[in-house]
Each structure stands twice: as C-alpha cells, then as structure tokens.
C-alpha cells in the first residue's frame, strides 16, 4: 500500500465532488432532505379514520353508542346517512374508510336482555390500517359492553357503580410502555430513518462516483497505471465514507434536535457502529458499481439492493420477530436489521456495547465480506 497514491486519489475525488454542485448537493442535501420528508410524512399511527354512521334506531342508547366513536381521536366523524345504500359511494370514493350500522330496535333489544348486532364496515384495501381499525372498534365495543354490564349489576344488586364496574371486569390490564412511554411512532421512525438514509445515500453516491469513471473512460488512467487494486479502492472510497460519517452526525442531530428523539445510549459506541455501518453500505455501492457499466444502471441496482431490503427486512414496518421463518432468515442476511437494533437500542433503550456488540460485529463482518468481494471482482485488465 502506497499511502501517497491513496492520498492522491482521495484528494482528487474530494475536489471533484466539491466542484460538482449537483454531486455535492446529492452528497449532503439529499440525506437530510430524505430524513425530513420521511420523518414528517411516514407516520404509522392510525388516527383520524374517516367514518359515517347509519342509525336505524335513533334512540338514546344508539346515540350513546355511536358517540363513543364520534368522540374518539382515532375516528373522524363525517356525518350520518339514512341507509346502507348511501354508504357504498362514500366507501368507494375513499371519503370514508369505516362505517357503523346500528340496527332498528337496538335499545329495545338490549333493554329486554336480547343481544343486538351492530354492523361495522371497514375498508380493507390497506390491511395494516384495517386491522388496527378493527382493534379500535373491538375495544370501543368492549368498553360499551362493560359499562352496560356494570350498569345492569349496579341496578340488579344495588351496588355502587365503581364496585359494579370492578365486578363486570374482574381482570384488568395495566399497561406501561417502556422506552417510548408515549408510544410516539415518530421516535421509532426517526431512529429507523437514520438506518434507512444511511443505507440508501452512501451506496448511491459511491456507485455513481465509480461508474462515472467507467462511463467517461478515466478509469483507464487507473487501469494503465501502477496503482494497485487495493490502493484504488481505498483512495476512491475514502471521501465517500467520510461524507457518510458526516451525514450520520447530521442525521443524529436531526433526530434528536428536530424530532425530539431522546438519546439514552453510549454516543461513542453509536458513532463507531455508524462508521462500520456506512463502511458496509459504501461497500454495497462499490459492489453495484463493479457489476454495471452505466450510471443509470448503477442507480437502479442500488435501489434494488438497498431500499427494498432495508424497508422490508429492517424491522421498520414489520417487526422481525413477527415474520415467518423465511422472512426472518432473509432479514438476517441484510445489514439493515442489525443497525436498526443498534440505533433503537442506543436512542431509546440506552444500551451499548455490552448488549449490542454482536450486532456491530455482524456489520463489521458484512462490510469485510463486501469489500473482499469487490476487491476480487475489480480487475485492472478486464475482459471487455
């Protein structure tokens, strides 16, 4: 390894990046912009579900029942309609995503001790939202049932309403959310976004940087010179790793400063893990750039290699533990999952090296393997 040559390569690369406005913007503006756009746009909280009511009973009890939905922050009341038939166009246009139909004689049946069936219609086009909505409906309905029962017990046995409520629900659940007490999805998402952006931006930059030389023909300066393969890869990628490290700090600042995510863990451990992680993702870009010839193809390939696995298999949308065995296996093949764990652990759980060293090691191995494959694929005397 000749350090002077590595320095010459890195120096040249850095100056090219700085002088090319578009590339410079791509390097520093795009990652921060991604963080902002996704941070504000991608909320997984299901709230304000628009809904409508068909009340065939129009009794005091049916009003009480429907008001539990109307007053809920999870639902957004859009009005009453006369019949089920009027619901169809509303659902079809997505003006409402949920409807509740109270049958005739709702109050009369309940008062007489007969069960009453309330129909709820949920737009199933987004299963995640639909199943969350279903949960809300069941919970509101259960609370209503519980109160009816308590009122009955209170009336029947002449006990105080509080006592009756306790009798009606002998087992109560006491919930305390750990690490993210208010269960703010922003916290988790901002943390996962650090992972996502650092997975997407460095490979893009790297792949474009290397393929640009292939496309223009300046790669022949390298082929025809005495620079070794290792020197070239090191010198060429040093600036990109550097830029990505700076970006990881910027993203950290955005997460804590703008999105208010607490950072409870070990800053040094998190920083070093980030360095390993961006080395790893830069390696993905390098690998992509060695397989293709044009900048367009390099972009496509990095999208496939980075965005898709890191969105699907990182635990961002679906927890790894709730995937089927095959999904879990695939998740372990991508580096995103390990860094998601490190980031969540460092930001929200306040754990560090002791608990997370295994994940950091996995990333380091991943990085080493990527770089070794790239080294083996890169030839100064190619066949075409």
């Amino acid at each position: 390894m000749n350090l002077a040559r590595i320095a010459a390569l890195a120096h040249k690369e850095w100056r090219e990046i700085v002088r090319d406005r578009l590339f410079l913007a791509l390097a520093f503006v795009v990652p921060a912009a991604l963080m902002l756009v996704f941070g504000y746009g991608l909320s997984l909280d299901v709230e304000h579900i628009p809904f409508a009511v068909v009340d065939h009973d129009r009794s005091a009890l049916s009003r009480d029942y429907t008001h539990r939905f109307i007053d809920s922050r999870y639902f957004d009341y859009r009005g009453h309609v006369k019949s089920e038939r009027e619901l169809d166009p509303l659902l079809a246009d997505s003006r409402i995503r949920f409807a509740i139909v109270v049958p005739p004689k709702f109050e009369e049946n309940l008062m007489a001790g007969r069960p009453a069936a309330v129909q709820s219609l949920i737009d199933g086009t987004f299963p995640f939202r639909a199943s969350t909505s279903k949960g809300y409906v069941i919970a509101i309905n259960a609370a209503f049932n519980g109160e009816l029962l308590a009122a009955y017990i209170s009336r029947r046995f002449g006990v105080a309403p509080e006592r009756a409520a306790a009798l009606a629900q002998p087992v109560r659940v006491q919930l305390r959310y750990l690490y993210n007490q208010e269960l703010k999805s922003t916290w988790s998402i901002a943390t996962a976004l650090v992972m996502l952006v650092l997975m997407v931006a460095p490979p893009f930059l790297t792949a474009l940087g290397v393929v640009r030389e292939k496309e223009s023909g300046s790669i022949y300066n390298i082929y025809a010179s005495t620079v070794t393969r290792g020197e070239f890869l090191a010198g060429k990628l040093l600036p990109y790793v550097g830029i990505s490290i700076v970006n990881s700090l910027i993203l950290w600042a955005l997460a804590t400063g703008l999105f208010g995510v607490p950072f409870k863990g070990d800053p040094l451990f998190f920083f070093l893990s980030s360095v390993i992680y961006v080395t790893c993702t830069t390696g993905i870009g390098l690998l992509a750039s060695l397989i293709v010839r044009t900048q367009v193809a390099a972009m496509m390939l990095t999208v496939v290699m980075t965005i898709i696995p890191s969105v699907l298999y990182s635990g961002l949308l679906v927890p790894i533990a709730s995937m089927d065995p095959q999904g879990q296996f695939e998740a372990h093949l991508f580096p995103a999952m390990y860094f998601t764990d490190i980031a969540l652990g460092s930001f929200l759980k306040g754990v560090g090296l002791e608990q997370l060293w295994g994940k950091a090691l996995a990333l380091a191995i991943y990085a080493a393997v990527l770089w070794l494959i790239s080294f083996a694929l890169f030839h100064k005397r190619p066949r075409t």
Partner: protein
Amino acid sequence: MGEAAPLTPAPAVRVQGFGKRYRRQAAVAGVDLEVRRGEIYGLIGPDGAGKSSLMKAVAGVLAFEEGSIEMFGIRIDSEAAAERVKGRLGFMPQGLGLNLYPELSVEENIDFFARLRGVPAAEIAARKAKLLAMTRLDRFTGRPMKHLSGGMKQKLGLVCTLIHEPELIVLDEPTTGVDPVSRRDFWAILAELLREKGITALISTAYMDEAERFHRLSLMHGGRVLASGEPDAIRARTPGSVLELEAEPQVEALDRIQASLAQAESVGPRLRVFVDDAAPEAAVGTVAGLLKGLSLRDLHATTPDLEDAFVALLRRQRLVEERAVAKPRAGDGDPPGDDVAILAKDLTRDFDGFRAVDRASFTVHQGDIFGLVGANGAGKTTLIKMLTGILPPSDGEGRVAGADMHFAAQAIKARIGYTSQAFSLYQDLSVLENLRLYARIYGVARHAAGERIEQVAELTGLTGRERQLAGRLPLGIRQRLALACAMVHRPRILFLDEPTSGVDPIGRRRFWDILVHLARVEQVAILITTHYMSEAEHCDRLALMHAGRIVADDPPAALKQALREEAGELLEVATDRPLAAMALLEQAGFAGVALFGRHIHLFARDAHTATREIQTILAGRGIGLASVTPRPPSLEDVFVYRITALEQGEQRL
C-alpha cells in the same frame, strides 16, 4: 538480467497472432505487428476495425484470448504480468479529453497524474513547467479542464500521459474530432517530445491523411491487418495509377468509367480514377478510350494517396461490399423552380452575450453541394439549426426553400431533410419500419409512400436489407439509412451534419456517390459539414468558419489558387534530420513550416530560389538534403494557413 542482455534489444511491442472476442463476436483476429524502439507506429482504420481492442490489450488494460503480446521482451499474459510493465507505459484512451477530470484545473489534472504515477515531488514542478511551455498551456493552468477547447484538451491529455516519462505511449485516436490546425500542432509537439526522450509511440487514427506522420503503420479493416510497413511501401503494394480529369457531362463519364473500372469517384467538378497495374501513360490511354466522344479537360496522372491504396487493397482482398447503389434515371422529382435553395444574409445568433454566429452570408443553388468546415465551436451547428428552422436568428435574414426563416419555420421543416450528428434512427426498428415511420412523420400520402420508400431504398443501396434491424447494420450502411429517411418526403434541400464521421473510406465513397447523384441528377441542394478535409474536396463550394464568421467561401480549387497567390508554392523537403532542419528553416523565416513524418512542408514564393536557399542553409549545418519537391496544396493546407493567419491577427490585437 544484465548478463543475459541480447545484442539487439527486444522491440518495444511484439504482437503475434493476436485475437480478441466479445462474447461470440470476434473484434480482432490474427494480428501480427512489431513496434521498434523509438519509432512512431500508426494503426489506421475506420471505426470498428479493431484498433481500440488492440491498443487496450497492448496497454495491458484488456484481457484477450488469442495470440501473444510482448512489451520490452515481457510477455503480457496475465494481470500480474501487465502490472510489471505499466510503470514504463503511458496510455490515453479514445475520446477527446474523456480520461481527464472536467472539474479539475489544468494544473490539478497534471498533479493528479504525477502523484498517481509516483513522480518524485522534487521533479514534478520542472517537468510540468517544461511540458506546459511546449504545449503552450502555461497560460491556462488555473482553468477547469471542462472549459478548454478540443485542441487544448488533447494537449493536456498528452501532458498527463507523458508526465511520468514513460518509455512507450499508446494513444487511441488522439486527433479525432480536433480541427486541422490543432491536429498539426499536436503532431509537431508529439514528434518533438518523443524524439527528445527517445519515447516509442503506438498511435491510432481514423484519418488516412495522417499516414505521413508515422514511421511505419498498419492498415486495419474489419478486425484484420490489411498491410503493414512504411507508408510508401504500403502504397507500393497496390501498383497502379491515379488519374484526375474533368469531363462533360460528368454523370455519364462516371457511369462509363465505373462500368469497367471498379475504383472511380467524382470529386467536386473532377473525376478521380484508379487504374490497376497500369503505368500513368497507359492509364491515361485507357480512360481516354472509355470516354471517347465526351469533352475532356485536364486529364493527368497524380500520386496515389493512402486512401487510394486502402480501397485498392480491400478490393483486391475481395472485402468490398458489392456495388449495389442503383442509379435511377433523371426525371424523378420536380424540376427546380426557384433556383436559389438557401439564401443567408447577415445571419447572427447570440447566446447570453456570446456571439455563436456572426453575420454569416452565403447562397446555395439547387444542385449544389455546399460544404461547411471549421473547428468544433466555430458555429457550424448553430448555423445549421437556424437554417433548418430549429433556432430563430437574433439578427439577419434567410430564405430556405423559398420560405422566410423568420415567419415560416414550419414550412421550412416540411421542405428540407436533415440528419443530425447524433444517430437519429430507431435501432430496434427494421430498415423498412424506420422508412415508413419517417414517411408518416413527414406526412407522405399513404398511397405514395410505398413507391417512394422503394425508390429511396434503391437509391441508397438498401434494397434487400429491408427486414434487418437498424441497430445491427454496419455504420456506413446505417448512415445511408439515415440519409434515406431524410429523403423520404422528397425534400429539395438536405442538411447533413457530419454524416460520414467514423465511416470507412469505401463507405464514405459510396455515401458520396449517392450525394453526387442527388445533386447532379435530382438537383437537390446539399449543405454538409465534415471534418475530413479530403472529403471537403467533393463540395462545389466550401465555406470556412472561424469564431462564428465565414472567413472564406469559394470552390475548393479557387481556395487553393488563392493560397498559392498569397503564400506561394508548397514545397516538400526530405532530409535525414528533419527536426533539426525544421528548426533551421523556421529561423530562416519560411512560412508554414510543418513536419510530416520524415518530410518538412513549407511555403515559398519562388520554388527555385527557395530550393537553393534551403540547400545552403542545411549544408551549412551538415544536414543531408535528399530532395525538394513542389506539391499541390491540400484543403487542409488551406484551412491551416487561413486559420493560423487569423489567430495570429487576433493575438496582435
């Protein structure tokens, strides 16, 4: 290794049985050649001849399958072996300035190459200063490479290739796309640099007229070497004579000659004929016999150039595509109405304070071939865009095909045909599908389209290829298809922007056959740009552009005559020490002194006095003088003389 040193050192490069395939496609096969130390060796051939593959393999940046390559006695058969010689090698890939870094300045580019090549820091400054001074780039060290002109990029590329003082340099088409003035400058600098350090060079080019720059060369075509050796020796491989003449009517004369002699073409008002295996006198007799009854003028023999030899070699090795360009008789197309096809008066175009075209005025008549030549950035493309109604002029007037370009840009577009420099065909469509598409785009009536497509396909020699995909056609035939597409709506005027770039000489000749037919028989006006100076000879009139202005506009013969009157005779001086002689002759005040391989070209008012003067100057320094011969000036000489004079005038201002 010292004790085993052979008496004669190994050649710089020895290639034996070299072959390279891409997938199944063989790019090069069975190439043998040897580059001796200290010589400038040329690879000449059109695009697709296999030059680049060979050069990359020699430079150790491309793996190959067949044969062997040795460099300085070291066999290059693996990546590791290639690494061993790379320190002694400089390589400049194809593409003007493409291997340089556009965002970096001239100096930063050189510094990067120096550091990459491990040039000791102490030496960088001195070497850089010297190379910058020789290439006259020293005034531009801080300028970003992307803002350099083509000629300057090329010189910077050369400096970067030479900064580590390699023993061998491999330059892939360094002069493609560079104007003739910069090309001459480049060759002069290169010759001086190489001689000073005793550097060997392997250089490829697509320009046949650059053959004189090489000590020895190989002619390549279709992945094979046709002939190797000194330029004169290659010419001697195809014995015969070249005749030039003027004949009336030209079309009939050419038809009669081509019926019995395979290698004949019209060059502007003249015909040029190669008669195989015949002494000049016999050849004159043969041609005169063929043209009995026609009026002939100025029938004389001239020296064959390398392009004549190249075509003759291909013909003898039966590598020529059969002549299928049919020539429908006249009467096809409307008779010319308005005789003036293009009228430009003080056409001007400004871009943000920069004047791309400055008061251009000229006239093109129906049936004329009008050539536009000039360096990259001289304003040719902008001028064509204005004339074709794509770009409105800032000032001035123009009428194209009878329509005013200020008000009737749409009418102009309907009456002209245009092929752009960039390839404008749909590669995944067949020949016929492309033609049908263009017929519909131009609104050719459906019932007439079929017949017209047949006509243009026959005229451009595409009959029988209708089902082939455009992308699969060889470059020369693809360009004919582009021409056919541009003609499908019977335009009265054709605009062709560098249509023959990279096409082999035979393909270019066939292309010109078609153009001449269109102009002479169908009275189509043709405006064409080219950077092959040899091709500019075909034009009836030639406009020379420089810095947005038309600085000359005359028939080629008149341009040459004007050069003779202004600068004098062109003399070719052959000596045993050309570089030393060149310096002396320049000092003595001769104009236009330039080096061509081993010969020096210069201008002199009076050939006799000049010859005596040259003899005394060279004898005084003990330099042997073989001969001083007058030569007819080429259009390149005209171009270089004119532009150099203008540039010197600008510098004085």
